């Protein structure tokens, strides 16, 4: 598992060190550097636009520490490449793409925007598909089953079975964004090969607040290996206070930009502070409330 990452001179990340948990969430204003940090986990080459203040004389450096094995260090100047130490899957899911029918093809990894969800699901063994369908029905009780139905064009698309009338199957365009996203999250841990780290931008988009707790809980179990298989570390980037309320304080990282030069500062919840416990109680033990008050940073001005 990735325990610590230090990045220097990458975009707005002039010199940032961040600790990771099995499940970590990055919180900050728009443009606060969350996406740049996620990008460092799976990029392979450096363009001038990737270097701090577009300075060609600087080198982008990465240092990763793991809970087993030695550290990984790499440095690259403009137009140079990086070696990769971990297999990171970066997801910026787009529900329009997730709903697309796919030309039938064997695919074992979900694409960044999720356009091959149908193929990824259909490539799984039937037993695994059934397991996902059961988990899915428990999270979205309007449906009892899901499968990939062939179309005449050589394509296939996902369909969802109505709970109250088993003759009715809904097409992706007929179900909510959240329904499609839940299925996507449940499919991720069955990909093959499984990545070392899953980085998901704004996983909450389209999800009903009631589902967020279950999704976070599922992702945490995946990250800790509690659902079987090897643990799949998860890093989320979010603007959702509702999602934050389902996180544990030690899992949250707040992103801020320094007023002086715009460089990013990453901070943790000050769990070691004697003040923290009492202050958290004043905020009703709600990370959402703490975050939105601005007391720990990670918010814009207004």
């Amino acid at each position, binding site marked *: 598992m990735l325990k610590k990452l230090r990045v220097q001179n990458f975009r707005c990340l002039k010199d940032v060190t961040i600790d990771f948990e099995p499940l970590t969430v990055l919180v900050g204003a728009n443009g606060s550097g969350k996406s740049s940090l996620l990008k460092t986990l799976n990029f392979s080459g450096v363009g001038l636009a990737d270097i701090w203040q577009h300075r060609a004389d600087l080198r982008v450096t990465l240092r990763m520490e793991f809970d087993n094995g030695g550290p990984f260090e790499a440095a690259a100047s403009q137009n140079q490449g990086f070696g990769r130490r971990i297999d990171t899957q970066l997801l910026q899911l787009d529900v329009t793409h997730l709903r697309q029918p796919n030309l039938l093809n064997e695919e074992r990894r979900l694409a960044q925007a999720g356009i091959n969800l149908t193929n990824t699901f259909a490539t799984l063994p039937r037993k695994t598909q059934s397991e996902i369908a059961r988990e899915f029905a428990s999270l979205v009780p309007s449906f009892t089953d899901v499968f990939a139905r062939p179309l005449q064009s050589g394509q296939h698309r996902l369909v969802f079975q109505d709970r109250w009338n088993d003759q009715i199957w809904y097409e992706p365009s007929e179900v909510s964004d959240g329904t499609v996203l839940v299925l996507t999250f449940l499919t991720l841990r069955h990909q093959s090969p499984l990545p070392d780290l899953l980085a998901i931008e704004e996983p909450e988009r389209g999800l009903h607040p009631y589902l967020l707790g279950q999704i976070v809980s599922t992702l945490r179990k995946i990250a800790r290996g509690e659902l079987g298989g090897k643990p799949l570390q998860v890093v989320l980037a979010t603007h959702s206070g509702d999602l934050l309320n389902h996180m544990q304080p030690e899992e949250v990282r707040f992103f801020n930009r320094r007023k002086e030069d715009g460089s990013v500062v990453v901070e943790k919840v000050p769990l070691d502070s004697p003040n923290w416990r009492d202050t958290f109680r004043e905020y009703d033990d709600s990370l959402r409330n703490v975050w939105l008050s*601005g007391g720990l940073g990670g918010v814009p001005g207004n």
Partner: protein
Amino acid sequence: MELRVVLYSEGHAESGGEDSSLPPPGAPLDPGHLGAAHLLVERCLLSKLVGQDVAVRFLSPLRLPDDARIPRGSDLLKRKTVRRLVASFGRGLDPDLVVVLVDTDGDTQRRTLLVRFIDEPPVKHLLRSIVGAAQQAFEAWLLGDPKAADEIAGEAVSATEHPETLSPDEAKQSLATILTLARRRTPDGLSSDLAARRKLATIVRLEDLRRQRSFEEFSKECASEASRLARAAG
């Protein structure tokens, strides 16, 4: 040394500047963000520190979690809100001092109530704080120096010698009249009511304002707290 202070007050008229776009909570405010109440509070804090190398730096206030607003007016009368404003996160963004400034609107127990909110346990983890409660309204404080009122209006306006006896509406109306005159002065009229309020806050004689008991108590507490913080900082 620098005293890092966050001010919460009734509304934009008291603590708003020409620049209404505030930086994130905990970040330093620029001069354009400061309102009349900031300037008056700053003068009170530094009144006993003349000649010492002490400056006041106002920080951007915390927001209300429900709608990201700055807590103002009736927000400041809620126990939960007030306690959150004086809670310490134990990190660099914490101010040295939190000032909560409200109008009593005739409620003589208002300050006592707010102080009680703050003093309830757990006290040890709270930030240093001062609660000011203007007798009736903050506007009455600004009216406390008749000469300053004449000066800013550009003519004799016959401001009352005892503004604390005015109702909140009367105090606001009296001040509004003065501010209007200040804006219409030629050739050096002030650009806005906010600018005129700020100007007034910088020229009023604190000695005159202290004739109002609520201001006297507030300014005394400010001076005392600032001196204590300055001593603690060495």
